[in-house]
């Protein structure tokens, strides 16, 4: 029941997005890119999704323009 409820919440969120107006958002791109990973045959699905959303670079940055993280690397394709 718990997974069913969460899946329906996610479906409702995507429906709300369809109704909303706004610019393209990297967090939505990240969410959509992660959905096919749920259907992959082999685990670990959670790690695959977390890796997909992660900053793939390896060097420290000069300076941050925010203290917060958004959940998805902003330059995700």
């Amino acid at each position, binding site marked *: 029941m718990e997974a069913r409820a969460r899946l329906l919440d996610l479906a409702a969120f995507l429906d709300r997005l369809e109704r909303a107006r706004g610019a393209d958002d990297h967090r939505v791109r990240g969410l959509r890119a992660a959905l096919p990973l749920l259907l992959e045959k082999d*685990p*670990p699905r*959670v*790690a695959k999704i*977390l*890796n997909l*959303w*992660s*900053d*793939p*670079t*390896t060097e*420290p*940055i*000069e*300076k*941050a323009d*925010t*203290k*917060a*993280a*958004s*959940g*998805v*690397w*902003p330059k995700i394709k």
Partner: protein
Amino acid sequence: MAENKISMRYIEPHGHMVSRTTDDYQAMALAGCKAICEPAFWAGFDRKSADGFYDYFCQLTQHEPKRSAKYCIPHYAWLCINPKESEDMGLAKEVMAMIPEFLKAPTVLGIGEIGLNKNTRNELKIFEAHVDLAVQHNQLILVHTPHLEDKRKGTRLIIDALKANGKVQPNRVIIDHVEEHTMAAVLDQGYWAGITLYPESKASPQRAVDMIETISAQRVWLNSACDWGHSDPLSVPKAALEMRRRGHSSAAIDRLVFGNPVEFLSQCPKFIPPEA
């Protein structure tokens, strides 16, 4: 349920109690909490001077242990300037200069929670300086890994910096807030790993137990990192209940939520293992 609650004992190895109410202390005591460890962290806003940190360190080492004692829970602290405020290197160095004085306090266990936030060069330099300070004073180290999309990169930078120091003993370091994509890398290098249970932005109790089952229950602790944000001071006993639901033995649960943190923390002679 009542029997579980009475028989449960656990350590909260990472809780920001200065942000919590006395009701939370009472609930934790009733749930079986036998000790709380409080790392220094970001207050939700940037402090303007080192004096603000001096007062905070006094709060952590003098006031909060008294508040906790009213609920029969020993309270310990870790000290540092957190990564969110270490971008200002002048302030960071001023704050770090005060830390040795506070390390003498009877309830201070080590340096933490140090680490990275947005993986900047300045954050990394201050992290390395904290590691030097910990080595110089023979202190345990508690490391904060960055949030969300910054975690994997930050964890790698942190592990590289700890290795580069050359004098850090991995078994005296806990790298906290691991998730499914970082936990194995931390454990493989000989460090302890902390799994933080958050309602949204870190692991749920269910995911934490999945990690215990599929990656490791050795050199791992669970914590709530309860603070001023969306967090749950009872998330460790909730994870224990999840383990019980899945059929884990009482001994395995006790080992994870009590024995493991006691083993790590007992490397500091100031930590007094709670009686069974």
